[in-house]
């Protein structure tokens, strides 16, 4: 069967695709950063629990909140991805339905486990199994999401449905799957470590021993994970179909530029990390993640090129609602800032 015959129908969207694309890239970058903190943070919290100057207690307070924001920030990229690639995403979700539907339940379980761990820490009880399970569950979520996003862009793999219609198809046969997933997981460890370094940076600057120790631990995770990350990235790149890979090796100016910029950003991040400058490293990491998200999007576009490009979508523009959305976003952001500042003031941190 020709996979092209399985291509979902084109839909009508209410603004030019580029607007959604931009929103997708920005919001997904934000989601990834928070996700990395939660996943990486949970893993590091587990491995460093019980050590002297362990960051685990601090993380136990932060992780549930960060997960709440991760979930929230997962909504807009999923929404904008649905607008641009909805048919492809939903086909993949049907093919992997069991796993896809489990995501929310698994994430919810991880969420409650993080709270259980946090409440335990407050009482002075170390409920390590809860933390370990939460970390494993979050890894499962990343595994599933990585699978489905990979399946989305491979219509040639969709024909498996005809023999396996029960929603248990995974994208494991894709040679890029494991490097891709490990790339994300390792990034989480790096960002999680960097997050620890960052939140302890101020106190470390005041030469508080515990903070310094935590910062060093965080940076150590960041630096090592980033080095592994570079190797994994290379594996991922080489695992790509040759014609896609070559786009990043000079065949396409845009692709190559984004790739080189990403490499530069990660090199800078690593350099700052090695020098013990978490804030600079963090800024570089934000740039890196943004560029990697862009690269990931270029890879998806290249994979789907024989079948689809969002520019094919029919546009029936209506900008009023877009404007209202932007106003809402600005107002909510302003009020969120106001509330957080009230909180910070209340804690006497200013």
């Amino acid at each position: 069967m020709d996979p092209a015959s399985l291509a979902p129908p084109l839909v009508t969207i209410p603004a030019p695709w580029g607007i959604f694309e931009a929103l997708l890239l920005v919001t997904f970058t934000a989601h990834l950063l928070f996700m990395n903190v939660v996943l990486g943070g949970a893993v590091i919290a587990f491995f460093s629990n019980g050590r002297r100057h362990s960051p685990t207690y601090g993380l136990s307070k932060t992780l549930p909140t960060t997960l709440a924001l991760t979930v929230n920030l997962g909504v807009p990229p999923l929404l904008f991805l649905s607008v641009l690639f909805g048919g492809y995403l939903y086909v993949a979700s049907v093919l992997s339905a069991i796993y896809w539907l489990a995501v929310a339940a698994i994430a919810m379980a991880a969420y409650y486990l993080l709270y259980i761990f946090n409440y335990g820490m407050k009482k002075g009880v170390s409920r390590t199994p809860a933390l370990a399970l939460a970390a494993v569950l979050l890894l499962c979520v990343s595994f599933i999401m990585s699978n489905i996003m990979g399946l989305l862009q491979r219509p040639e793999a969709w024909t498996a449905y005809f023999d396996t219609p029960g929603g248990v198809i995974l994208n494991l046969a894709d040679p890029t799957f494991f490097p891709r997933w490990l790339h994300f997981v390792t990034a989480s460890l790096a960002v999680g470590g960097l997050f620890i370094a960052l939140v302890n940076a101020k106190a470390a600057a005041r030469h508080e021993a515990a903070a310094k120790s935590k910062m060093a631990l965080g940076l150590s995770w960041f630096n090592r994970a980033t080095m592994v990350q570079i190797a994994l990235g290379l594996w991922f790149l080489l695992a790509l179909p040759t014609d896609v890979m070559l786009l990043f090796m000079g065949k396409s100016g845009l692709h190559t530029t984004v790739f080189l910029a990403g490499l530069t950003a990660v090199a800078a991040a690593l350099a700052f990390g090695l020098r013990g400058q978490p804030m600079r490293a963090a800024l570089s990491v934000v740039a890196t993640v943004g560029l990697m998200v862009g690269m990931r999007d270029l890879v998806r576009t290249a994979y789907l090129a024989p079948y689809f490009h969002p520019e094919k979508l029919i546009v029936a523009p209506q900008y009023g609602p877009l404007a209202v959305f932007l106003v809402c976003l600005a107002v909510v952001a302003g009020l969120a800032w106001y509330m957080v500042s009230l909180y910070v003031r209340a804690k006497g941190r200013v």
Partner: protein
Amino acid sequence: MDYPVWQIAATGGGFWIALIATVHVFVAHFAVGGGLFLVLTEAKGHRENSPAILNYVKSHTAFFLLLTMVFGGLSGVAIWFTIAVLSPGGTLTLVNAFVWGWAMEWTFFLGEIVALLVYHYSFGKMAARDHMRVGWLYFLFAWLSLFTINGIIGVMLTPGAWATTNDFWDGMFNPSFWPSLVFRSFLAFLLAGLFGFVTAIRVKDAAARERVVRTCVAWAVVSLPFLALSGWWYLSVLPQATLDFILRGSAEITPYLKALPVIAVAVGVLALLMAVRLPLAVRTPVAALLLVLGFGVVGAFEYIREAGRRPFIIQERMWSTGIVPGKAEPLADPFLPRAAWAKNKEVTAENRLDAGREIYAFQCLPCHSLSGPMKDIRKYTRHIGNEGVASYITGQGRIFKQMPPFVGSPEERDALAAYITATVNGRPLDKPVVADIKTLPVDIPAFDPNTASHLLLSWCTLGLKCITDADGFFTFLPPGSALGAVLVRRDVLPEVVSDGVEITYAAPEGFTHPSRHVEFWKYAPSLIGKAPKPDQSAGGKGMDGTLAFNEKSRIFEAAGIPVVPFADDGTINPYPLFTVTATDKATGKVLAETRTVLPVSTEMSCWKCHGGTFRIDGVMGIANPTAAGILAVHDKRSGTDLAARAAAGKPVSCQSCHPDALFDATADPKRLNLSAAMHGFHVNYLTGKGEEACANCHPDSHTGATRCLRDNHASKGIGCASCHGFLEDHALTLLRAELDAGKERAAIFMQNITPRSVPKTADINARQAWIQEPDCLTCHKDFATPERGARAFNVWVKDRSGLYRSRKEDTGNVPCIACHGAPHATYVANNVYGKNRDNVQPVQYMGFAGVIGSRNRCDVCHTVEMEGGEMHHPNMVKP
């Protein structure tokens, strides 16, 4: 069909969305109302300077956060994940049309999270005024989130102008937006009160506890009347068709509709009970019960709202199967070639079941489970075979709107029915019912044309009388056949005798005890309001008796002879031969004797769709499970209690409600007459068939036990449709008459039926059942032999006087039926139980089977040779 279908048959799609959505909505509304509850109760705590109340609010906030933010937030995402899998097309439509609405809602969701986290983590640490501000902001964001989602959800039920404009704002502020928003807001406040109890009853300080518990009571109780009023407002803005469907059109919605106010009142009563100072051991289960009941309110409301837009996922735009109406002509265009995700592209003998499986996945699985908790397909179909299932598929979406019409060709429909029957239900596929019929001897009485003084012609008024032998459940055709006779005194100018003679009839041996075979006499008091003696009709006619001379028709008649097709020896015989004898009253001398069949049958294949089997020998009779199935569906669809009445031993006659000219039953004249109701309803399920559709209910199957169409038309291949039209035509003739009589129900039955024998419904000539039938002279113009292909359909006799069985030849003495034979058995008839079983009189009087007097056999009556031959009707003498 543009997307694959997740083939998890056991639960079906609907269960997951119902479960996740209802649970989410329950918590999400609490998230809104609870926000206002928190900030107002905190204000109360500050106002009353009560640390106990503030402590309560603090602990309630923790509970609130863990429930609404973690469970509420992720279950909301889970809904999206779920609908994406179960209805990708519908989800994408909503995503693309309302992306900025979803995006706005996301910003409010973000605001909610930040506000709630700040509110929770700063409780008692922040200045009261600032903390209250954060609380108010939380409620504002939560309510705005409801505001936005409410618009998008509402458009699925009431698209309003959006359906044509596709304008975002038309969709958001759809017709049900405001009432729904108000309703949901009060629902949120109600739930805030109910959830409030969870923590309130555990407050340690007794005085503070009672204060906060009473606050919760007030929230719950005050919300209820507003909930009811806004619910009323909500219903009032629904389009009439949607409202009708919700209030009357769906048997599945009715229980929820009835339950909702009951649950709401129970919530009010129990909430008031909480105001009483009771021990924790009592309050805890009451609080739990209140939450369960609150969940019931949410569940019932959401079910009604979701089910109310059936068969659409988005009203008028997309069916719940994800198929877009208008893209395909139901029950015509093949589906599989257009279904991208179907492996089989056409139905063949080899792939029939697998093709059926695929069609099932696309068109049934979105709602139906396999032995699952919701809409279990087995529950609906396990009692019937594939023919019945196919009929249901044909009928879906026509009269009852909860299902969309089947999209596909008749072959695909049959493949689907075969899959459901053979694979899902594990039943063997239907095979034709083939009756093993043995020829019965026909004893023709003697007749000597040289000596006979009289000629006795006798007939059954109906070519075949049907009975419904399900008397313990219902009847619409009790036993009771009519016999007619004329006695002709043979002469140069013969005359019809009316005086001085007695004409009697007698059932053949083995047919004298019908009460041994059917339960009519047991239930007659309930069915017809009379208690006739066994084997007698209500009018006193038994299995033998006398024909009375009717001065008006000038025919000897006996009506109500309760003959049944079952002989005492256990055999089936739909054609018992009765002996009719004319005797001189004065002398007692037998003047003439003949025999005629009193044809009777009960060969309605109701079981094909209503379950069960034939009652007798697998070829005849309505079995109890079948009859029970019929009553169950009548009760479900028409709100009757027929099954309960039957169970109580009080079955009813269908004519007790439905008018029926056959019995001159007027009953409730506003209802459809029985013929119109029966044909009009069932044609929706049997449309698209040939004359085999007739044989499902009339004893006309070519392999059945009766084979009632046995006349000279049948032998020439002229079937039911030539005179009565196909089932669609036939039903429309009856329905049009009822529509003309102002019965709106007829329009519902007619709306999806198109005529077959005329171009359009407007060309159908209305007629009254049993009063207006086809006119023989439509084809037999001037009594001549018709041209090939002539059709009698759509020309009806004016009234009863024009019926074949009422009409007489030109001298006005002899009925047509006397010489030509009974309807559907006109001479030369060919009865499967014996060639001449219906031809006794021609053979007796002329020595051959033919119309009485044919082949110039005027001598059967006239004692001299006759000339001319136009005396009785034109073209009498055939060259």
